Each structure stands twice: as structure tokens, then as C-alpha cells.
């Protein structure tokens, strides 16, 4: 009997020990619960939790990412990365998940930030484990992305919020305070706000504080949806003004179309058997396109006016600086297949249509950031890539509009709209395409390209395509 009791005590002790040592945590949601393994460093296995919530989770081997879908919401994350794509929006979290033999594990904070919050839940500690509760946790972090632009006498600041959240805007002496009663603002530090009226932007607890330069004050504020954002108008500090004071005038800006005649200077580009150079041909065509567009009331600028070289990145930067409506780079083609002829239009291919390709593109970016010095960091590249995605659909529409007009020209075989990462299209913040008007390497086509008549036809087709695109924008 004494022996039996001894065994029972040992077994009872082992019952306690097994629970402690095995690293399990009891997670409850609604009427159901699950034992969730915990790694040695305290991370939770995510798959049992996702299963508990009824979420679909899958791992893409080619992409190396986990995708989680619950209802209308979608979250993607990569073991080892703090970046999480939540409903198409990229966020940097405090910690990264890690791969485990049975799936993926992450800290409670990551679980809450990456999985629960996007799906409208939060995590609560309770005796014996964790409870998943509906609704946002009190003081859950909210990402705030600030952007500011000076317009002469006023400055507009837009604070884009990670989600819809209640805010209170307060005009304090020398500062504008945006107060989040139920959330903890987290400033997107990657965005540098450049404005003559702002000296700093920072977060203090639930307040986002925008310190203003001498003489500046808050003129007005609006809270807007889609995306959730707070818009602040800054200007000269309000002072007793004469009744006749006129409202601040916004500078009227006309955004031009930017045409980029390819190559130039020492970079001649392709050359026809008779010596016609690509740089000369495309400048002639660009001038014609510009004349036609200006004649139709569209201000148009060229990246080079004469036979001068210009760095590829500088051409795009020029268009960005002018906030061009569209950017069209003009080129003439060459192929070792002398029979190759016809026009084709390219647009960027960073955001690929297939998941695998997208993943590979991401890998490319990550790699580029990780292994090359002097380049952007991964964050810049990903943010930039996402901004690119916004103009990509527009770029494909512009490419199609131009290519369609080129196909309408007699004797021009359609080589179609294609996608590839061109240096000169990289980083363009507007719809941007590269048009290859024809092959200088094809003797027949080169002879035609050399004629003013055909150049005018091509220019008209390109201008028509641009105008058609702009009219349907």
C-alpha cells in the first residue's frame, strides 16, 4: 500500500511536471479550446490557434510565406521577417515568426498583432491560459503614415491610419496633437516628412504630436475614410484678421506628360544598316508627339531636348519631380533576327500576376537589399514595390492604349504589350511605359522609320494612345 501510494505521488508530480515542462498553453476561443505547444523561447505554435479560429492557413514553398485567410481578411507573413502583409497593407511588427518542425511559431505579441487584430480579435490572459476575445484590444497599436506637402501659403498633412480609429485633433501652442483615445499610435518612421511648417513628428503615448515651426498653426482638420486618414491644413497662425482676408490660395499646378527619347549623347542605341541611330530617330518622334499633344492642350516635356546623354534613373526622377501624368519612353529596336519587325510596348513587371512570380520578385528585392551595398534597404524596396503596384494597372492600360493605335498603322505587325523590369521605368510614380516603335535592324522597316511621313504616323498613334488613356482615367 505504501509502495502504491509512492507511485501515485510520483505520477501526480509528473502530471504537474509534464504540463510545465512540455510547454503547452491552453488557448480558448468561444466554447472551444486547444492545447497549444510553446517553444523553448516562449513562442506559440500558430497553426493550432488558427485552426481554433477556423482560419485557412497555407504555406507556399516557392514563396516561403504563410498565408492565412479568415472571412474577408487575409494575412501573409514570412518566418524570420517582421514584415506582415495584412489585407494588402504592409506592416512592420515588433518581432518575427520562426519556422518549427510542425509549422510556424511566434510570440503572443506577434499572434495578436499579425493574426488576431486584423481578424478583429485580441488576446487576453486568464488563469490556466489564454483567451481569444472579439474586438480590438484596448490600446492596440495603430500604424500612422504621415505625408506632408507645402502649397505656397498652406501645408497639407495627411496621416494615413492603419485602420479606422477615433481621433481628436487639438491645436496647442506650437504643435498639433492628434489624440487616439483607444489606440497607441505607431509612427511609420520610414516616411520622412519634409515641410517648411513642421519641425518634428513624434509619438507620446496616445498622442501623435506634430511640432510646428515659428508662426505656423492649424487652419483646419478632417477625418476621412477609405483609407482611414486624418487631413490637417497648416498655415500662418490664426490672428485677428481683417474681415476681407481672402482664403489661402493654392498654387495651380499643371502636370505635364513626360516623353523620354531613349539613349542620347555617346549612347547611340541601335543603328540601322544605313546608319540611322536610335537616339536620333526617337528624339525626332518624341518632338512630333510633343507637338501633337501640346496642340491638343496637353503640356508636354521631354527628358532631353537635344543629343545629350542622361542617366536612366534621372529620366524617371525628372518625371516624378514634375508629377507627370504619364511617362512614355521612346525607343527603336534591334534584333539579330533581321526579319524581326513591328512595334511593341512594355510596362514594368515588378508586381507579378502569379504568386510564385510575386514571391520571386520579393526574393529579388530582399536579396538586393541584403547583399548589395549602397542600395535601398528592404523596407524601401518593398514599399516602393507596393507603390509601383498602384500604378501598374494604369501602366498596363496606357501600354494597351498606345499599342492598339500602333497596331492600327498599316504594315505594322503587332508584337504586343509585354512586361519586363526596365531601368527607366523603375520608380516612376505615374503610369509609365516604354514603346519600341520598330526595328532598325530590319532594313525595310529602318527605311520606313527614316521617313518623316512614317514618323508622323507613329507620333500621331502614340499621342492618340496617350490622350485616349488620359480621357478614360
Amino acid at each position: 500500500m505504501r509502495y502504491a501510494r509512492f507511485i501515485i505521488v510520483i505520477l501526480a508530480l509528473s502530471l504537474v511536471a509534464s504540463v510545465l515542462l512540455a510547454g503547452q498553453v491552453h488557448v480558448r476561443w468561444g466554447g472551444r479550446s486547444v492545447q497549444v505547444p510553446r517553444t523553448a523561447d516562449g513562442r506559440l505554435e500558430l497553426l493550432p490557434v488558427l485552426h481554433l479560429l477556423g482560419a485557412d492557413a497555407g504555406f507556399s514553398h516557392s514563396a516561403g510565406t504563410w498565408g492565412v485567410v479568415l472571412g474577408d481578411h487575409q494575412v501573409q507573413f514570412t518566418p524570420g521577417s517582421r514584415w506582415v502583409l495584412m489585407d494588402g497593407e504592409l506592416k512592420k511588427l515588433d518581432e518575427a515568426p520562426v519556422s518549427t518542425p510542425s509549422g510556424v511559431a511566434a510570440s503572443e505579441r506577434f499572434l495578436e498583432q499579425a493574426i488576431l487584430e486584423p481578424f478583429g480579435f485580441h488576446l487576453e490572459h486568464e488563469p490556466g491560459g489564454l483567451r481569444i476575445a472579439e474586438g480590438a484590444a484596448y490600446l492596440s497599436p495603430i500604424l500612422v503614415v504621415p505625408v506632408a506637402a507645402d502649397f505656397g501659403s498652406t501645408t497639407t498633412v495627411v496621416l494615413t491610419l492603419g485602420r479606422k480609429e477615433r481621433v481628436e485633433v487639438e491645436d496647442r501652442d506650437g504643435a498639433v496633437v492628434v489624440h487616439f483615445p483607444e489606440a497607441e499610435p505607431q509612427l511609420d518612421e520610414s516616411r520622412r516628412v519634409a515641410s517648411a511648417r513642421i519641425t518634428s513628428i513624434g509619438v507620446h503615448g496616445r498622442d501623435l504630436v506634430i511640432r510646428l515651426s515659428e508662426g505656423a498653426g492649424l487652419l483646419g482638420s478632417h477625418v476621412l475614410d477609405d483609407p482611414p486618414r486624418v487631413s490637417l491644413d497648416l498655415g500662418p497662425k490664426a490672428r485677428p484678421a481683417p474681415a476681407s482676408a481672402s482664403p489661402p490660395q493654392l498654387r495651380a499646378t499643371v502636370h505635364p506628360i513626360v516623353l523620354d527619347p531613349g539613349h542620347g549623347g555617346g549612347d547611340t542605341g541601335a543603328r540601322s544598316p544605313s546608319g540611322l541611330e536610335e537616339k536620333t530617330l526617337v528624339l525626332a518622334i518624341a518632338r512630333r508627339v510633343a507637338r501633337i499633344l501640346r496642340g491638343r492642350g496637353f503640356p508636354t516635356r521631354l527628358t532631353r531636348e537635344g543629343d545629350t546623354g542622361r542617366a536612366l534613373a534621372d529620366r524617371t526622377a525628372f518625371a516624378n519631380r514634375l508629377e507627370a501624368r504619364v511617362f512614355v519612353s521612346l525607343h527603336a529596336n534591334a534584333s539579330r533576327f533581321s526579319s524581326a519587325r513591328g512595334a511593341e510596348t512594355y510596362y514594368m513587371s515588378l508586381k507579378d500576376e502569379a504568386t510564385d512570380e510575386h514571391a520571386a520578385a520579393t526574393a529579388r528585392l530582399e536579396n538586393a537589399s541584403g547583399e548589395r551595398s549602397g542600395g535601398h534597404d528592404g523596407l524601401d524596396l518593398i514599399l516602393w514595390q507596393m507603390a509601383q503596384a498602384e500604378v501598374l494597372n494604369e501602366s498596363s492600360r496606357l501600354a494597351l492604349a498606345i499599342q492598339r493605335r500602333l497596331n492600327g498603322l498599316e504594315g505594322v505587325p503587332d508584337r504586343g504589350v509585354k512586361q519586363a523590369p526596365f531601368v527607366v521605368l523603375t520608380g516612376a510614380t505615374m503610369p509609365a511605359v516604354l514603346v519600341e516603335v520598330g526595328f532598325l535592324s530590319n532594313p525595310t522597316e529602318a527605311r520606313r522609320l527614316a521617313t518623316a511621313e512614317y514618323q508622323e504616323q507613329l507620333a500621331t498613334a502614340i499621342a492618340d494612345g496617350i490622350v485616349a488613356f488620359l480621357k478614360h482615367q
Partner: protein
Amino acid sequence: MRARVVLLVLLGAAAAVLLLWALLGPTSRVPQSGPEPAPLPTPTPAPKRQAVLLYPGSDGLLHPEIVPLSLPDEQENRVRVLVSRLLQPSPAGRPPVAPYPAMLTDVFVREGKIAYVDFTAPENPLAGCGNEVPFVYAVVDTILLNCPDLRAVQLLFGDREVETLTGHLDLSGPLPLNKRLIAPS
């Protein structure tokens, strides 16, 4: 007393089961309906005896050709075999993929995901998007189609990373698969 002993014995038995479970397989109770965990490496099958290679045509697209080729399992060798074959005319008589007499000088794979392929640089400046794009993607897409573990390929020229070859395509980083340039079969 007897009931208490039975209770303790039952508790003990439960503890034993739990202990066994905890020691032998703590994750075995994880719901199995989740996604498949990463598969363990499996023995690779015998080398493939043929490969799909992409050769540029005059239409600017990449034309798949099935080429008898023994592909090694080891990634770098596999890439080397593929690219070396691309630098020869295709069985259907298409010219080698490179628009100049390029030679393969080196192949290396980083982290099992990105292949770097180094060619001799062209002696004279190369021109034309129609020379650059099909060449680059014939190499990139052929490698990625035949090496499923690889995610991207970067082309180097003369042991150097280049921004571009003819002033068009961005070659400064590894390129992912671009299926849009492959001719519909």
C-alpha cells in the same frame, strides 16, 4: 478509503498517459487540418534525361524546346548544364540564346534560391531591347523552369554586376520568372 485509492490510481494513470504523451509527442495533438508542414528532404529521383529549354525567336518570344539533357541534381551543376546548352543552337535550329559569342564563365547559387550566372561580356557594345530581353529571359526562365527550388536568377557579365546590357532591362538584381515572354505552345 477504497474509493479514494481508485481515484488516485485513475489520476495516476492519467498522469502517466499525459507524461508519455508530453515526452513522446507534444505536437501530436495539434489539429491536423492545418497546412502541411515543410516536407523533409526526400531522396531525389534519378537525373532527368530531358529538359525544356527556351530559345528566342524573331517574334521576340521564348520558344520552348525539349532537349535531351542529363540534368545533375546538384544545383550549380544543373544550372551550368542548362546554360551551356542554351549557348548552343537548339535542336530545332534556333540560334544560341546569346546575341553575341558569349561564354559561360561561372555559376553559383546563394542560399539555394538565387542563381548567379556569369557570362563573358560582349566585346562591342550591344544595342536593342530585342537583343537584351529575349536573351536575358531565355536564361532566367529556362533555369527557373528546370530548377524548381530556385526563385530568381541574376546575370553577371565579365564577373561584374551590371545595371543593364543595352540600356533597357534592369539587370542589377536577380530576376524572377517572366512567363509572359514564353510563346504560347
